């Protein structure tokens, strides 16, 4: 074991410090230096997460790699970190994605390079903080602070309507989180002056209080997930954000919402969670079915994938609120898998956009002729997005459907329809973009992927396949924590 080493602090602060260093390279004259420094920073930051995986104890549901020191004694706010099987894979995912994002922006970003790279590195550290924080106020600080770099990324390097999208994104998420802040302060007094999340989880609360708290948390996390009907910021943000921003949004920040449900809603307000299951399930199924149909009619590829993300995240919330082991583990597997698949899809669109500067499906057609390697890779990701067996997309969806079936046949029936919608919108898009005759001469001139792009997409392809064929390492890591959470949620906290 590595007891005593502040690994989590390293995982949080190393990217932030490298971000500041990258920022210090200044103007675009030093862009090459900024890029290299960012890549080194991101890679090293990813490397230091390795001990988390290597020495993670899968037998326990307790918090591991804990760190504790007093931060603001006046309010009893502590710098308390720790991970369990739910948060650890997300930290790994985030640190890994940051490396890809730095690589993906290597050529495309020519304007204010150091700021771009620094924003992603700092954001990466802050998001690791979100997943590792065990003190509610520390969590809140990271949770809010990560909005600032993302806001800037969308607003500075985004598309034509970037300003609208950035402000909408920020205000939407701020709205949700402010009510959560009041909930935290309320719980602080209930817990006799402590912001410890674990203390909140042990607190007995009356039903009416639980429902109020549940709704406050729900507002914060439903916006992040995002659940129907508070999802409208996501397509705007995705469409306008640069590729890297879309990747982080889809792969990581959406997961923060689901993580919040697992860390706050369920354990702190279990009775309200049971009571309001019907409500959440309804919203989740609307997301799965209705948003799936909305995705079908999109003409903009990024928008299509954004809606597909909402639909897939509906699966995650559905699985979480089934309160059985297979459903919840399925939800977690789906979270990680969606992280890879959606990132790959956005990167794929990015590859095309960099060449033709269009996201419209109708502008493409017949890419298979001059971009065969790319077409092959995108095929794999499209299959994974539609949940084909053998890819990671299948595992999570299948587990969630199994878990749902144990509860209610019709829920499962509706949820399973996503295998049709998902296949329909993804493969139809794939067909229109990749196959068919080349109708435009600009398309005919598009070059296949360069080695840098091949590496990015290739690594993701391997991960998608590996998780699809052999998901056990991941399920082993999450199993104890999920069992423990379910046992906790099964007990009433009513006084």
């Amino acid at each position, binding site marked *: 074991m590595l007891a005593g080493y502040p690994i989590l602090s390293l995982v949080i602060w190393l990217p932030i410090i490298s971000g500041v260093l990258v920022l210090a390279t*200044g103007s675009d004259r030093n862009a090459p230096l900024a890029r290299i420094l960012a890549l080194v920073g991101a890679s090293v930051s990813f490397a230091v997460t390795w001990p988390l995986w290597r020495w993670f104890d899968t037998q326990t549901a307790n918090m591991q790699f804990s760190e504790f020191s007093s*931060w*603001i*004694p*006046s*309010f009893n706010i502590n710098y308390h970190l720790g991970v369990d099987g739910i948060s650890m894979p997300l930290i790994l995912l985030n640190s890994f994605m940051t490396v890809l994002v730095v690589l993906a922006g290597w050529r495309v970003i020519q304007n*204010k390079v150091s*700021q771009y790279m620094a924003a992603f590195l700092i954001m990466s550290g802050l998001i690791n903080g979100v997943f590792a924080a065990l003190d509610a*106020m520390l969590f*809140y*600080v990271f949770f*809010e*602070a990560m*909005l*600032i770099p993302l*806001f*800037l990324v969308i*607003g*500075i390097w985004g598309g034509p309507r*970037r*300003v609208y999208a*950035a*402000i909408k994104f*920020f*205000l939407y998420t*701020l*709205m949700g989180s*402010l*009510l959560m*802040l*009041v909930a935290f*302060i*309320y719980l*602080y*007094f209930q817990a006799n002056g402590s912001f410890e999340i674990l203390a909140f989880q042990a607190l007995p609360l009356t039903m009416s209080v639980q429902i109020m708290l549940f709704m406050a948390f729900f507002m914060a996390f439903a916006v992040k997930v995002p659940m129907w009907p508070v999802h409208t910021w996501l397509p705007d943000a995705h469409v306008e954000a640069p590729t890297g921003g879309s990747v982080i949004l889809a792969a990581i920040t959406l997961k923060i919402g689901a993580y919040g449900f697992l860390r706050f809603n369920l354990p702190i307000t279990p009775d309200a969670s049971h009571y309001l299951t019907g409500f959440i399930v309804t919203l989740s199924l609307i997301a799965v079915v209705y948003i799936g149909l909305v995705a079908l009619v999109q003409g903009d590829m990024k928008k299509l994938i954004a809606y597909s993300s909402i639909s897939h995240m509906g699966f995650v919330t559905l699985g979480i609120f089934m309160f059985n082991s297979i459903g919840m583990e399925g939800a977690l597997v789906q979270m990680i898998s969606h992280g890879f698949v959606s990132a790959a899809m956005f990167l794929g669109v990015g590859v095309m956009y960099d060449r033709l500067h269009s996201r419209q499906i109708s502008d493409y057609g017949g890419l298979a002729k001059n971009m065969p390697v790319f077409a092959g890779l995108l095929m794999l990701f499209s299959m994974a997005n539609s949940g084909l067996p053998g890819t990671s997309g299948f595992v999570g969806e299948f587990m969630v459907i199994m878990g749902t079936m144990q509860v209610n046949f019709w829920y499962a029936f509706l949820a399973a329809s996503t295998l049709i919608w998902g296949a329909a919108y993804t493969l139809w898009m794939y067909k229109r973009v990749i196959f068919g005759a080349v109708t435009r001469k600009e398309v005919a001139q598009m070059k296949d992927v360069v080695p840098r792009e091949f590496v990015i997409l290739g690594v993701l392809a391997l991960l998608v396949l590996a998780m699809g064929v052999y998901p056990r390492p991941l399920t082993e890591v999450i199993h104890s924590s999920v069992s423990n959470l379910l046992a906790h949620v099964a007990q009433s906290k009513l006084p």
Partner: protein
Amino acid sequence: MNFGMSDLMPMLPEIFLLAATCAILITDLFISDQRRFLTYLLSLLTLAICGWLTFSTATGITAYTMHGMFIDDLLSDTLKLFLYITVAVVLVYSREYLHLRGLFRGEFFVLVLFATLGMMVMISGGNFITLYMGLELLSLSLYALVAMQRESALAVEAAMKYFILGALASGMLLYGMSMVYGATGSLDINHIGLLLQMGVANPAVLVLGLVFIVAGVAFKLGVAPFHMWIPDVYQGAPTAVTLFVGTATKLAAFAFAIRLLAQGLQAFSADWQQMLAIMAILSLAIGNVTAIAQTNLKRMLAYSTVAHMGFLLLGILSADVAGYSAALFYVVSYVITGLAAFGMIMLLSRHGFEAENLDDLKGLNQRNPWYAFLMLLVMFSLAGVPPTIGFYAKLAVLQSLVSTGHTGLAVVAVVFSLIGAFYYLRVVRLMYFDKAEDTHPITPSFDFKILMSVNGLAVLALGIMPQPLMAMCLYAVEQSL
């Protein structure tokens, strides 16, 4: 009446400041315009010595002198130290700005120092008369300061408005004080507090007096519905004066409110809490909503001040030590942030050009990424987004609200801060997302550059490590009330 040196010791900083200011006034008469820099240095030196005097005579024990007219406690020492720093920062920021506009004259420094003296008296006032005297010394100096730019019609109009409304507020305050005097037969705030606790006063007269006192305090703080002067004065006054009015006076107004409400009329807190609640909500609503419609940066910051002072009232409203210390922390963090915000306006201004419109911030990130970053921190701090100090200030106030059972008010407060976030974000948007129209290089003097950086980074550093300041505020309030 026997006076000894020991009676004068607690008010040594005030005595020194008065003497030094008179000396500066006379010295300045004999200095030519080219050597006006000397006045500036002398003023800074005076503030530094005041700081040293306050610091070295701070005992932590509450001392009363002049038969209770003057209080020297830890709260007053803390506030005075912050006041000196604030005024010194105001002077450094203002130097070049005043110079370019022909306002770099002795009057400015003398008036600022007299206003500072007034604020110190307010901070230490233990008697209605002392408090009122301090207030008038401050107000009269401010009227003159606002009107200093004689050629500017806007400034003269602002001064006129300020003067008339200020006189009205002073009248109300005096009327309220006389009512309280009628009901209790005392002008000494501690004595009044004692009498009220014993319940010997006529409550009907007292509550009536209380209404007028609260109105007077509200005017000085600039909370709705007594905020009408704020936007005009902020916009009309030279930015150097706006900086002074917008930051330093808030410290004094806070002390004024604490002395009157918490120390004198604490027994009637149930009555003034209701008034404060209404005014706070009104301020949050009017301040935040109206700020959205502004195109003038100074005016926008003025409405933002109204909203912030509403938040401050929420802290006082809790009427316990936690609430007062939260309010103190709030006002100090607001002053630090406000200094940087108005300082940035002066930084972007140059000869013959006032960077007072929102559009003047366009593309600041392109022109100078460092200042854009500092302003970004300031804006997020005003919006209350972590990890900046503004977040902890809001957190402390919300916490005191929830602990005293005002959860509903806390929810209202966060809803309005969400609305407020919009116009702060708009500033960030202008700086980062828009192209620069004005491409003049930004060339502040060296001292301005350093101070601005320290000021802006303090907003972040105190947000990452808020504990020392927070503990200091709590300790000062605990020891004094």
